[in-house]
C-alpha cells in the first residue's frame, strides 16, 4: 500500500512539474510563433486570427523583404556578418596570443599585465562611450566597420583572456618539453601544440564574441549613421520607424532577422553554454 501511495504521489508531482515546464515553454515560444506566422498574415488576420495559421499563406511580405522591394534585409545581414566575422577573427588572434603569453611564458610584468586586462571587467561599455565617440571621430573611424569592430574586440579582451588563459595553463608541461626537444620555441609551441589542442575553448571564445557582436546595438548606434552600414538590430529599428503600423511587414522583417541568431543558437548552443558556465562558475 505504501509503495502505491508513494508512486501515485510521484506521478502527481511529475505531472505537475511537466505542466509547469510546458507553461513556461509556451510563454517563451508563443511570441516567436506569432512573429513568424504574423509575417504571413494580412493586417486583418493579425487581429481576427492571432494564433491560427492563416490560409492561404500570404507570402508577399517575406518575398518583398527578400527581393529587397522593401527594407534592406540582405544589406543589414551582410553588415552584421562582416562586423561579426572581423570581430571574431581579431578577438581570437589577439586574445589567444596574449592569453598564451600570460599563461605559459615567464617574464617580469606577466601578472601586472594580466591584472591590467582584468581591470577591464569593471568597465561597462556605457562608461567609455562618449570619449570613445570623440576618439573614433579623431581616428576617422566613424561610420566604418572597424569603428565598431575594434572597440568591440577591445571590450571583449578581459573576459576572453581570462577564459583562454585558464585553459592554456592546464596544458601539461610535458608537451612543452616535447615541443622544445623537437626544436620549437614559444611561437612554435603555440602554433603546433597549444592551438590544435585548444579548439573547443577557441570555438567557445569565438562563439561568445559572435553572439556579442551579432546582438550589439549600442556601439553600432553610436558609430554607424548611414543606412548602408546598419546592422540587423539597427535595420529592424529603422524599418519599424518607416513602416510604423504595417505590423505584418515588421513581423516579417523581425522573423527574418531572428533566423540567423536562432541558427547560431542551434549549431553552437553547446559552446555558448560552456562559455557562460565556464566563465561564470569557475571565474
Amino acid at each position, binding site marked *: 500500500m505504501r509503495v502505491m501511495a508513494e508512486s501515485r504521489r510521484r506521478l502527481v508531482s*511529475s505531472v505537475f512539474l511537466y505542466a509547469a*515546464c510546458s507553461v513556461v515553454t509556451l510563454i517563451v515560444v508563443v511570441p516567436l510563433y506569432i512573429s513568424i506566422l504574423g509575417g504571413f498574415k494580412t493586417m486583418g488576420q493579425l487581429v481576427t486570427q492571432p494564433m491560427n495559421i492563416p490560409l492561404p499563406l500570404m507570402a508577399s511580405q517575406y518575398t518583398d523583404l527578400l527581393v529587397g522591394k522593401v527594407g534592406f534585409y540582405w544589406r543589414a545581414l551582410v553588415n552584421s556578418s562582416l562586423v561579426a566575422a572581423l570581430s571574431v577573427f581579431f578577438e581570437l588572434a*589577439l586574445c589567444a596570443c596574449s592569453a598564451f603569453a600570460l599563461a605559459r611564458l615567464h617574464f617580469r610584468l606577466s601578472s601586472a599585465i594580466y591584472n591590467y586586462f582584468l581591470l577591464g571587467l569593471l568597465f561597462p561599455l556605457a562608461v567609455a562611450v562618449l570619449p570613445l565617440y570623440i576618439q573614433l571621430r579623431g581616428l576617422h573611424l566613424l561610420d566604418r566597420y572597424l569603428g565598431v569592430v575594434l572597440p568591440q574586440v577591445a571590450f571583449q579582451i578581459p573576459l576572453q583572456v581570462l577564459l583562454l588563459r585558464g585553459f592554456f595553463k592546464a596544458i601539461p608541461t610535458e608537451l612543452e618539453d616535447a615541443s622544445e626537444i623537437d626544436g620549437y620555441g614559444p611561437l612554435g609551441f603555440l602554433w603546433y601544440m597549444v592551438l590544435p589542442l585548444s579548439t573547443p575553448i577557441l570555438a567557445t571564445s569565438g562563439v561568445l564574441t559572435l553572439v556579442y557582436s551579432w546582438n550589439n546595438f549600442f556601439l553600432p548606434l553610436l558609430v554607424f549613421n548611414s543606412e548602408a552600414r546598419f546592422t540587423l538590430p539597427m535595420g529592424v529599428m529603422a524599418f519599424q520607424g518607416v513602416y510604423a503600423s504595417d505590423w505584418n511587414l515588421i513581423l516579417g522583417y523581425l522573423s527574418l532577422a531572428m533566423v540567423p541568431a536562432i541558427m547560431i543558437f542551434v549549431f553552437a548552443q553547446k559552446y555558448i553554454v560552456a562559455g557562460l*558556465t565556464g566563465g561564470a562558475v569557475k571565474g
Partner: protein
Amino acid sequence: MTDTMTAAGRRTNLRLWRGARKAGFPTLVLLLGPALVLFTVFVVIPVAQAAVYSLYRWNGLGPLSTFRGLQNFAALARDTIFQKALWHNILIVIVSLVIEIPLALGVALIIGRSNFKLAVFFRTFFFMPYVLSEVITGILWQFIYHPQYGLIHSIAALLSPTSPAPVLLGNPRITLWAIMVVIIWKYFGFHMTILIAGLQDIPVELQEAARIDGASSGQVFRHVTLPLLRTTLQISMFFSIIGSFQVFDVVWAMGKGDPVNAAETMVTYLYKFGIQRFQIGYGSSVALTIFVICLAFSILYRKLVMREER
C-alpha cells in the same frame, strides 16, 4: 633542465623562434602588443577621459576650457529625470532578484533533476531568448503589447469582449513593468543555465544521504542543495544586478524610455544627454556615476555577500 636545453637551443640557432618559456622581448611584443594597444586605446583611455571630461562643460568641439569642478555632478544629483532613472534601475534590480532569479532557480531545480526526461528539450527552449538581440526582442514585444493588433488585444477580447485592450507601453504607470516582463522573458533562461551547471556540481550522494536520514524534499533543498548552490547563486545574482544597472537596448527599442521618462534608465539618460544633445561633459558625469555605482556595488558585494563562503 630547461636552462641547459634553452642554452643548447640558443647555441644551435639564433632565431628568436627558439628558446621556449624564457621568451625574448620581440616575441612578447608580438604576442601581447596588439591586445595591449587595442585595450589601452579603446577601453582604458576613454574611461580615463570620461573622468576628465566630467569636470568640464564641453560640447566635443574645440579645447576643454570651461572647468566646472563637480558642478556637473551636483546638477545631475538635482535633476529629477536622473533621479527617476536611477530609481528605475533600482526597481529593475529588485524585480530581477525577487522574480527572475527565483523563477530561474525553480526551473533549474525541476530540469536539473536527474530523472527528468525532456530536460534537454525544455532547457533549449528556455535558453533560446538569450541569443536573440534585445532590440529584436523589444520590438517583438511591442507588437505583443499593441492594443489594436497585438496578442494583448486578442487576450483582452477573449476575457471581456466589450472593453478595449489595455494600453501598456503608452501608459507611464505601466511601461516600466511591461518592459521588465520582457527582460525576465529574455534572461531567466540564462540564469537557469548557470544554476543548472551549479546543481550538477553538487554530488548526488549528499542529497541521497539526507533523504535516507529521513529528510523531506523540502528539507533536502533547504539544508543540502541551497547551501551548496550558494556560490553559483551569488554569481548569478551578481550578473543580474550589474546587468540591471546597465539596461539600455531593450528600453530603447520599446519607446526610448518614454512616455514622460516613465522607463528612463541611467544609460538611456546618458545617451539622450551625452550623444543626442552632445553635452560631452555632462554626459561623462553620468557615465562616471554609473561606473562608480557599479564599482561600489561590486566591492560591497564581494565584501558582504561573497565573504561568507571562505
